[in-house]
């Protein structure tokens, strides 16, 4: 098991290198002057683009440029973002915790709901819950995220006033900025608890409900479908029939024997879900005015803020690589055959 994880970890730098090479290759479609903005860390340098082109060899062969750029990236210099009006690395540091918090809760909800609904659907095949889950899956997958997001916002904020957009209500926001609140992680729910401010925790949760619901509804569909078909297949397997024939209660057969094996394709899918989650975050944050990296990324790409978009791509690619690594490790934990291979 450890050897397997070490092997995967050793591959990580190679994958990361591949990702940076791909992003850099895409950058080559831009003119040297546009690429020069990647090397700017201070707005005063904006007037010195020709010097930067020379300094960073942007008119040199691609491999020379790639080396220079990679060195910059490894030093944490991702350029200057015109949209955030600060270095890209600082902007990412500022925006990322909000997105991480949103993605984390959404991911947990998707996993919990998807697996539960998929299992229930398979166990109760062709019954009401199965029909409901299939209708939910199809509508969730076919309804554009922004439509669903706006719908939720109109009903649960515009009509009921329950779940407001943004990250915090006015009072909570003012308290957080008052100097009495210590930021430990940047995750508002966690920091609120660490500060002993339950009311800020609940306020943050209220603001997370709709974006999390949007992402969950958008992405849970695939997980439900896969879990359902995987469970149906497993439930038909000989060993499950044997377990049932032994007289084991159905709940134990389903929970302990069938689901564990049925989860193998689900774990593979989880990394793909993570990709979907990251793209979903972009739209969700914009609609809910949620100050995360997704909202910033949308603005940056609309405004051709190349350093920001590149930084955005790098961070998302990095997360994806990590997501894949987690999936591989979990895969090995769930299925001993993989470890043995």
């Amino acid at each position, binding site marked *: 098991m450890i050897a397997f994880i070490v092997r995967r970890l050793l591959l990580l730098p190679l994958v990361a290198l591949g990702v940076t090479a791909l992003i850099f290759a895409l950058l080559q479609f831009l003119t040297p*002057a546009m690429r020069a903005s990647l090397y700017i860390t201070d707005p005063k340098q904006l007037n010195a683009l020709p010097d930067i082109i020379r300094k960073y060899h942007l008119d040199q062969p691609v491999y020379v440029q790639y080396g220079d750029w990679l060195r910059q990236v490894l030093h944490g210099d991702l350029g200057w973002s015109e949209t955030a009006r600060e270095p890209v690395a600082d902007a990412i540091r*500022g925006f990322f915790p909000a997105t991480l918090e949103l993605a984390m809760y959404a991911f947990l909800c998707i996993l919990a709901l998807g697996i539960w609904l998929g299992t229930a659907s398979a166990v109760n095949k062709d019954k009401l819950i199965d029909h409901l889950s299939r209708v939910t899956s199809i509508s969730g997958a076919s309804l554009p995220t922004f439509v669903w997001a706006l719908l939720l916002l109109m009903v649960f904020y515009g009509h009921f006033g329950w779940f*407001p957009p943004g990250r915090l209500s*006015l009072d909570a926001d003012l308290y957080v*900025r008052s100097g009495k609140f210590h930021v430990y992680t940047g995750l508002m729910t966690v920091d609120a608890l660490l500060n002993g401010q339950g009311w800020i925790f609940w306020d943050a949760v209220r603001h997370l409900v709709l974006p999390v619901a949007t992402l969950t509804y958008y992405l849970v569909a695939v997980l439900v479908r896969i879990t359902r078909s995987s469970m149906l297949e497993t439930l038909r397997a000989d060993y499950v029939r044997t377990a049932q024939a032994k007289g084991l209660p159905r709940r134990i057969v389903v929970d302990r024997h069938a689901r564990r094996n049925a989860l193998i394709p689900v774990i593979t899918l989880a990394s793909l879900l993570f990709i979907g989650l990251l793209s979903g975050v972009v739209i969700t944050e914009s609609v809910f005015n949620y100050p995360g990296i997704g909202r910033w990324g949308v*603005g940056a790409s*609309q405004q*051709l803020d190349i350093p920001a978009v590149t930084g955005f791509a790098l961070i998302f690619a990095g997360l994806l690589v990590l997501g894949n690594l987690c999936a591989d490790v979990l895969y090995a934990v769930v299925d001993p055959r993989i470890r043995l291979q």
Partner: protein
Amino acid sequence: MKQRVLACTVVLVLAVLTLGTGARGAGAPVKNPDTFVTLRFGDPESLDPAYAYDTASAEIIYPNVYETLITFDGSVLSRYVPLLATQVPSLQNGLVSKDGLTYTFPIRKGVKFHDGSTMTPEDVRYSMLRFMLQDRDGGPSWLLLTPLTGKDSTRAGDGKFQVTYQDVAKAVTVQGDNVVFHLAHPYGAFLSIIAGFSFVMPKAWAASHGDWDGSPTTWQRYNNPKLQDRYAFDHMDGTGPFKLQTWDRQAKQVILVRNDNYWRKPARLARVVIRTVQEFGTRRLQLQQGDADLIDVNRPEQSQVQGMAGVTIHDDLPQLVLQALHFNFKIDATGNPDVGSGKLDGNGIPPDFFSDVHVRRAFAYAFDYGTFIRDAYRGKAVQPNGPIIQGLLGYDPSAPRYTFDRNKAIAEFKEAWGGKVWDTGFKFTLTYNTGNTVRQIGAQILKDVVESLNPKFKLDIRNMQWSQFLQTTNAHKGTLYALGWAVDYPDPDDFAQPFLASNGDYPKRNSYHNAEADRLVREGATTVDPAKRAAIYKQLTRIAYQDVPQLYVAQPVGFVVMRSWVHGWYYNPVFGGANYYPLYKE
């Protein structure tokens, strides 16, 4: 059984959806009674009063944090009341000299800055000198430079200094407790400029944070700064009723808190939050829920707030605003994605594409003004015939204006660049600011018409965050872009200079130059006789028609949308946004 459960669930959901409502209608309790929340679609560019020259920045700066010597009497632009001065100069009180060249302002005593220091006449003088000498490209410095030095910029066209320290030092002097302004020529609108642009900050505070220290020998180092060069870019120290608490550029939010040591009675509001929310739907819902007190609404979105319970629309507000599309005569193509290939090869435009008057006229004929005014303003606008709009001295209703004419547009395109434009086509990107649906509609109308004239014509549209849009166009990177002008002071010079003088805001951004226009703008500013001035501005309107440096597409009337529980609000077209001092929620 199952059907019954399903039916009950459906009934329950419908009941909850129809009965329960959280929307705050009329008579609902006031939410956050001591905090005012404004939602805008544009973000401030700078908080430095000598740099900022846009409405989003102006709302924070004046009259909420920084104050001027005198101000307007409520909504009336022709009457003034003292603010940091104790009297409004006039011929009657002897504070304006008989020749109209000297204005004396007795400075109020005991006024404290937000840092606790006491305002002195020397602070006032320093602030005026800093305002003039900082003089960034496309900034507001010309407003004081013109009447006080006779020149509208510290730099000549070749970039060399044409104003000395002595020029401005002798124009603003301290005499005891008074600050005296010595004009280069009589200027009828001078008090109006002082009412809008004589912001005062403490000299010691500025100098201690790396800003100019008032020295005659160092000012040139502080001239024409870049956006974030100065401490005052994101720090404020005024005398106004509110202090800056934070400007969080990531959260896109400015928080102002009440100045409890204000020299007048402190404001009733404890706090003002000005937040950028680009999605109109979100802004609208927050207004509906009472989480916002005042929001930006574009005219095409007005129907979505009309009739909303607990919301008031102040409509048909007279304003001196001009919406225009600007041609950049010399585009900086370096790293500029909006010019395509940068050549006239069908996939781009060369940097001087718009320097050919036939190109500009073609676009002028290709714009469907009637449809734009109908769709973007619901008919609540008129088509101007130049930068001198209705309501200003010298407005000429008989002056010619461009009308939508496809055939004339085609004829002009065929003449442009010796026929090459028509033969090879072009491709470029027109820009406007994010959230401005009026400009978006205008851009779309132009795109549709232009692309229908010739399949080789390609016009893309792109929106940009307000602050970045201003920076981009100021860096000469705009191609054809949609940007308006709101009055600084109600005088034709405030429109002639920014639109037609070489050193004006737009000609500077767009490298437009017409020596005759420069001469007339100067003459208009220095002439006292109203009849003569009117004749000069009529001449300038004709030049604008011939040269077409911009397309003048609409002069709209304004409207403001806010919760009905807001009281004390009044409209003043010179303010970038609201004056929060008299506001309260009840």
